[in-house]
């Protein structure tokens, strides 16, 4: 045996490894978002243009005022939030399931990064895409309407918490998914209906009592309204409750994702 083999190992600075590892996952996710920008950024921009053109300009003219604001102003925060939710979720579910399917998730699993760092890295990647798409849709909104800013910090907090929550939900979907069909089920059959019934296009005060009560169990209603409150200063729900709900959901989903990873669900034999 040579002397190199016998030499004492240099200390392993785990916190440094974790921090650099976390940054690397985020950089890789950002690189993926930019590399396939035609799939990650552009579709939401096109969709937003269509919504503003059809619902905002054509139909919205007949709707008039909603919640005390011009209809286009009213739906703008909802449309931004809808894009954020879809993209945060979609980014993580596609990226992590793709890594499982292509087996390159093993690059991370054999590395010294603990599972909570891996989950945090992917979730942050989802937030990055959510924020990027949110900004792009905001620019589209400004082409069609004037956006009043009531409270910038609340807008940003709602944006980050919502995208974090859905990024983590996307991670759970990717963990359990065994094929591409299962990647698409939740967005198609759960996320889209909840978003449309989450007060993006209307105020729940317009609904009959039973429908209003039903709407209050939809978590997306709280997210859309908290975000809208940041812009317009109006909300169908208690904003404090909305933020508490978002923060709690993010914490619970993070804990569940890490627990499942530690158990090896969907990733280890």
């Amino acid at each position, binding site marked *: *045996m*040579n*002397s*190199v*083999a*016998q*030499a*004492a*190992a*240099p*200390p*392993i*600075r*785990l*916190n*440094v*490894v*974790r*921090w*650099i*590892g976390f*940054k*690397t*996952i985020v*950089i*890789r996710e950002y*690189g993926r978002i930019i*590399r396939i920008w035609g799939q990650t950024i552009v579709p939401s921009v096109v969709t937003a243009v269509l919504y503003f053109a059809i619902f905002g300009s054509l139909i919205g003219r007949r709707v008039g005022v909603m919640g005390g604001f011009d209809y286009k102003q009213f739906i703008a925060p909802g449309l931004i939030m809808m894009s954020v939710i879809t993209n945060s979720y979609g980014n993580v579910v596609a990226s992590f399931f793709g*890594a499982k399917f*292509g*087996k*390159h998730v*093993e*690059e*991370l*699993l*054999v*590395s*010294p*990064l*603990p*599972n*909570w760092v891996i989950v945090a890295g992917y979730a942050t990647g989802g937030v990055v895409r959510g924020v990027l798409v949110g900004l792009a849709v905001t620019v589209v909104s400004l082409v069609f309407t004037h956006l009043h800013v009531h409270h910038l910090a609340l807008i940003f907090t709602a944006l980050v918490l919502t995208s974090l929550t859905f990024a983590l939900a996307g991670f759970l979907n990717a963990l359990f998914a065994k094929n591409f069909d299962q990647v698409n089920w939740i967005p198609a059959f759960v996320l889209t209906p909840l978003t449309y019934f989450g007060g993006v296009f209307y105020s729940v005060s317009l609904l009959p009592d039973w429908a209003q009560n039903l709407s209050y169990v939809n978590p997306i209603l709280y997210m859309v309204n908290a975000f809208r409150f940041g812009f317009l200063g109006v909300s169908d729900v208690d904003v404090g409750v909305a933020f508490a709900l978002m923060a709690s959901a993010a914490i619970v989903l993070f*804990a*569940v994702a*890490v*627990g*499942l990873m*530690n*158990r*090896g669900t969907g990733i*280890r*034999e």
Partner: protein
Amino acid sequence: MRPLWRAFAASNRGVDSGSLALSGATPDAFVMNALSVRGLTKTYSNGVQALKGVDLEVERGDFFALLGPNGAGKTTLIGIITSLVNKTAGEARVFGHDIDRELEAAKACIGIVPQEINFNMFETPHTIVVNQAGFYGIPRQVARERAEKYLKQLQLWDKRNGISRGLSGGMKRRLMIARALMHEPRLLILDEPTAGVDIEIRRSMWDFLREINARGTTIILTTHYLEEAETLCRNIAIINGGRIIERDGMRSLLGRLHVATFVLNLRESLGVAPHLEGYVTRLVDDHTLEVEVSKEESINEIFARLSALGIEVLSMRNKVNRLEEIFMRLVEGRAIPGEGAGEVASAGAPATPRTPAEVAR
């Protein structure tokens, strides 16, 4: 299965100190070896018992062959060490770090080249290796320098900015080796690294692996090319049916084979194998004769006897290399000629593995 709350709490697997070093480890072989495995078992959810109590020691600085037929348990064993597979029971340490209690520190010591291609085919080789270094805590600037070093050494530098999907099979294998070396691991595990690689590239990879082993990296190699294992490795373990059935030094193991089988091409056809007193002969076809010769016997004697019988030999070759001969005999539970029956391990009854100290290099 663990409850979810307990699984969440297990995130750090007992490593909370922020940094770890080996200097405080006790000088016990189990602690100090590059790899120490005791009583490792794995039963898959479908009931298949892939490992049945594996014990294995790999010394620091060794070039170690882990051989076995398909389905013997090699990949499962490697999977447990690298945490890709959850073990059922037993313990394993990598440079003294227990994989149950110090998983992060253990994994920081390991570089793995898996059997299957497992990098993102849509990323460039440069991105793949730089990111891999990041997962091991290597700063980006250092990672770029190492990427240049290893991609050049493995003749991939010209391909660094192309999409990895476009690489040839041999290039993909070399990329996985470059990726595994980016954090300069102390233990490099190569799971069939030269499968499907042409002989020229294979030999250049051998030189490269010898070089990094000479610099102090412990290497564990699994391969189906037994010539590769015989050429490169100093120690060897053979696994079959989830058990280690042999553990020895390469020279020592090869020295235990007392016979070689030669294949003779004959000028004239034969109907039956000729009887040569003291030799085992078999007729493969009417122009091909196999003869088993023990180490003590002269090959000249065979030619003399065949000449006496009027049989002319056109050419001769070894049937298999020595390691292949031993491997086949061990896996099939046959005796190694020249050894006492009691010394031979069978697939059903594992031999007691010899410790590295007992093994003649």
